[in-house]
């Protein structure tokens, strides 16, 4: 069991010495999406525990193998939360995996993403070296921001062993409102609301139904309700939970599920298989057998990018085509952090 940092470092050092590719594993909750091809597993799950948490500092530091649910319960006891609402996608999701995949939930468009809340990262690079970047304070500009570079890098630049995150208070009051509205009108509406000082914390658009969550001081939420109208949704909290975990019925599909991150104001994409739109219009889920090239192009034309999220075979997230200069920078970074390419080979796609 790799329950000490030294054991983890030893395994990476040995892998480096023997050119053995490693598959980094946390709680196995996101292997449907990303799975590296490597015979040897580097198990982070046993390396767990809260290193430091002082609620009045708004900062928590935990080891990578700590279950996300454990972190969230601890924060809840103090009335705090991970504001980016990371999806778990499985009971044993770990904090390390959460940061390595960089996924954020419904609140993302309004409070920020996983990378926005990362303050510091401790990691083992591809040579087995223990490195720390960033810190445990809210503001820190010493050195390049390697800790945020690690978010969403899928372990390809280093094995995250410890993460410091900014946390926020749980809003005092939340409510969910609903309108029946077609896609184009709903997209305009949520973007217009975005320009107003309203306490919106999530939106979803599915099958002609627009839902908006308001969060904040009760007086502010009630004032906003009077301003924007809409029907009250009784089981609102449950809806956002189902959406966050992709357990809402609309996500039940046999077709590959694609994630298209686009400009929030982009017109309806006109692709069949629309599942759900969230993040104020900036994230559109589509279940379809369309050719990948068609989805990549649609996303690019809408100011963003596409990737296959669920499908028959866990895929290496396909990057579409990175510009050649950027691709070269990616390759050089990968080489700098992991010269032998032993960490999660194949992820995050081919540059």
């Amino acid at each position: 069991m790799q329950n000490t940092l030294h054991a983890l470092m030893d395994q990476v050092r040995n892998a480096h010495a023997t050119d053995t590719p490693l598959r980094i594993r946390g709680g196995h909750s996101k292997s449907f999406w990303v799975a590296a091809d490597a015979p040897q597993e580097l198990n982070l799950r046993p390396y767990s525990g809260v290193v430091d948490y002082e609620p009045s500092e708004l900062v928590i530091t935990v080891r990578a193998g700590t279950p996300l649910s454990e972190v969230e319960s601890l924060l809840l006891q103090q009335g705090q939360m991970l504001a980016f609402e990371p999806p778990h996608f499985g009971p044993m999701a770990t904090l390390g995996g959460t940061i390595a995949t960089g996924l954020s939930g419904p609140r993302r468009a309004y409070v920020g993403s996983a990378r926005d809340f990362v303050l510091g990262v401790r990691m083992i690079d591809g040579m087995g070296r223990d490195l720390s970047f960033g810190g445990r304070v809210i503001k820190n500009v010493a050195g390049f921001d390697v800790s945020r570079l690690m978010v969403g890098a899928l372990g390809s630049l280093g094995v995250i062993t410890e993460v410091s995150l900014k946390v926020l208070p749980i809003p005092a009051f939340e409510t969910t409102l609903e309108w029946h509205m077609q896609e184009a009108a709903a997209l305009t509406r949520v973007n217009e609301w975005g320009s107003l000082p309203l306490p919106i914390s999530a939106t979803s658009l599915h099958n002609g139904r627009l839902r908006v969550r308001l969060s904040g001081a009760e007086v502010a939420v009630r004032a906003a309700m009077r301003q924007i109208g809409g029907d009250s949704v009784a089981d609102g909290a449950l809806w956002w939970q189902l959406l966050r975990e992709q357990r809402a019925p609309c996500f039940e599909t046999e077709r590959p599920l694609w994630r298209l991150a686009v400009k929030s104001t982009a017109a309806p994409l006109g692709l069949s298989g629309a599942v759900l739109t969230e993040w104020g219009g900036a994230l559109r889920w589509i279940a379809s057998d369309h050719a990948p090239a068609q989805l990549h192009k649609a996303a690019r034309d809408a100011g963003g990018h596409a990737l296959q999220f669920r499908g028959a075979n866990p895929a290496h997230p396909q990057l579409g085509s990175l510009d050649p200069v950027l691709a070269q920078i990616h390759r050089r970074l990968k080489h700098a952090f992991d010269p032998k390419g032993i960490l999660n080979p194949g992820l995050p796609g081919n540059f």
Partner: protein
Amino acid sequence: MSATPTQAEITSALSRWLAPGSILSQPEDVRPFETDGLSSYRQLPYVVVLPQTEAEVQSVLRYCHEASIPVVARGSGTGLSGGALPHAQGVLLSLSRFMRILDIDVLSRTARVQPGVRNLAISEAAAPLGLYYAPDPSSQIACSIGGNVAENSGGVHCLKYGLTVHNLVKVQAVTMAGEIIELGCDALDSAGYDLMALITGSEGLLGVITEITVKLLPRPQKAQAILAAFDDIEKAGQAVASIIAAGIIPAGLEMMDGPATRAAEAFVHANYPLEAEAVLICESDGTPEEVADEMARMQAILENSGAIETRFSQDEAQRLKFWAGRKAAFPAVGRLSPDYYCIDGTIPRRTLGAVLKRIYEMSREYGLKVCNVFHAGDGNLHPLILFDAAKPGEFERTEAYAGKILELCVEVGGTITGEHGVGVEKINQMCVQFRPDELATFHAVKAAFDPEGLLNPGKAVPTLHRCAEMGRMHVHHNQTAHPDLPRF
């Protein structure tokens, strides 16, 4: 590599792409560029270029890349860590002519701007649409948005609204080889590694930023501030912790110690309580209902924490008056002494009392007065050391004192720079904060963008050799990084 080209050779080569008025090399012409906001460091640039288009920036960089000439990019030159200090044999690339706001998209709440646009100019342009750009460094009337990206600048509202890195959508830059790269995209995330986060705060070492798309936020309907006075700075620190612990994220949460308060009062006459040992300014913003609710809660906490006086701003003029002293704290302190030296450490808030005690003790040891202003919400401490550069040895003593304060910040779990950057100023303290393997990683990151090391060389990241020579070894939990290695 051939010998360094002469000024005349550089000027003549660059005149192929740039208009004659865009290339300066006479001492009287380049003198205004010899320093930035950290004026204790000066260096005349070899050649200054003032390109007007991205294509011109590309040409300059391609030529310098080919000829192995170092390049230092410069925005408004307000930086406080010497990040834009020229290179003696290098080209200083000023982006001051990149002054246009290219587009404001009200529906997507974004502004596409050139790097030389002033921070405040973005908010001014967006104001008629009810929007603004949130990060507000104190120098916002002068500092450029390109410089803000290069330094990842903060401001007095960043606990609630984030730093520059949290308010960017897209950054376009030119690499040292003259290639354009686009980082980020119009969506909320982009394919590949998060290079936009990486270039933010990279102090001009990775690329020359030529275009920026920032997020705009709806302007809050109302903002109101409370001024609270304390007879003991520890009580003020406790009040800050209690406000956060109560689940409040104030829009602004600033502290000044007694000496800073008195200096600010003498300068702006904001009617600060002169007997206070600490003054807190807490700001709430949002809907009128939300503000009223939050203000009442904050007042109760401040009073329970032992505030000797609390005052609400009654109108916008008074709110701005509360802030005026804080925002003018640096020039106010500047009136007390021929020179002052501003420090930018960040500490876990809970260590504030202990850190200030140590700062005051060292003030006596070094025989130098100190005032402290503190972004209390995010733990960013700005001690201002008063000194007289005309007195022999006083600047050196000041630098030594400043270095000790930064080391203290690292020791308590903080960092040597919260928002001003490392530049040339804090390069030695980087050896205290980071271990050799981490510094080596920074050099590798730099090389991924600029393998020849021509962009802003010698800044931000010290060489391992320099750290060894300084004799400053990183000590973490009383253990050196590699206890088995012989030390120099």
